[in-house]
């Protein structure tokens, strides 16, 4: 018996979740910019280009994060050196124990 399988509910894929959220926010934005709630024009002036601004900001943030992470990535010379010396030790020990390389 596999009770796990019988009880499992279908979860939305991440893609489906994002599309759902975008549809919701997108329709709210469209409704408001087209005058659904009669907002003052200063509000509408900000709201209208908001998606574009958000997209560009997200792109900049992503690039900045990647750049920062690449620049601050630890370089471990010590680890490389240690590994080299242990390789020598390993080969010597294994040869003693009968390994034919």
């Amino acid at each position, binding site marked *: *018996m*596999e*009770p*796990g399988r019988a*009880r*499992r509910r279908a*979860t939305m*894929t*991440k*893609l489906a979740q994002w599309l759902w959220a975008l549809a919701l926010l997108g329709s709210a934005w469209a409704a408001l910019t087209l005058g659904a709630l009669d907002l003052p024009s200063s509000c509408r002036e900000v709201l209208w280009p908001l998606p574009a601004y958000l997209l560009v900001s997200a792109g900049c943030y992503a690039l900045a994060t990647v750049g920062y*992470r690449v620049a601050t*990535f*630890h*370089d*471990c*010379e010590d*680890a*490389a050196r240690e*590994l*080299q010396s*242990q*390789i020598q030790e*390993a*080969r010597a*020990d*294994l040869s003693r*124990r*009968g*390994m*034919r*390389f």
Partner: protein
Amino acid sequence: MASKTANRTPPRSRREPAGRPPGRDKYSVLLPTYNERENLPLIVWLLVKSFSESGIDYEIIIIDDGSPDGTREVAEQLENIYGSDKILLRPREKKLGLGTAYIHGMKHATGNYIIIMDADLSHHPKFIPEFIRKQKEGNFDIVSGTRYKGNGGVYGWDLKRKLIRLYRKEVLQKLIEKCVSKGYVFQMEMIVRARQLHYTIGEVPITFVDRVYGESKLGGNEIVSFLKGLLTLFATT
């Protein structure tokens, strides 16, 4: 053990190692190999050294997929040197893929924890006792090595997604059963599925030294296939 994995989320209080007397943990290292004749003796020597120095009970399961370079002969010599209770050879006829190598290896594992790593010296076994310590500290289901935090880092610029992870045996069995991708994407998918199943995941900073023997293949190819894998997971999980 069957009752534990049948439910969708094991309650926290039941996270005990299954099937072994308490305080007698054993760690099975799965080493799928393909053409690792040069690296295999070294990785095994380093593993034996790390485990022995820490007094940890272990076994190393070498799953060779019919390597043409003599990896199997080297593995046999290692079995003679260290004993067939510590070095288990479970080879296969030809390259059958990473996922099936793990499944095959797990069938023969007698430990209650499984460690998956690459046989090419990119990850140093000296971190394994830290993984074990971290797992006990947080009672984690999975412990993964990270190059991005703490003292983690790299030497050399191989961007390939090398992974070293410690799993509770029953957790790995459950995850493998659920995963559908192939190759490296499969390893990414395992973590996604693990989160969905509410398994706990710990991280240990590790250093990654680019492969010592053999060719390093840095290329746009890796980046493209990584992104493809990511998008696939995004759309299917």
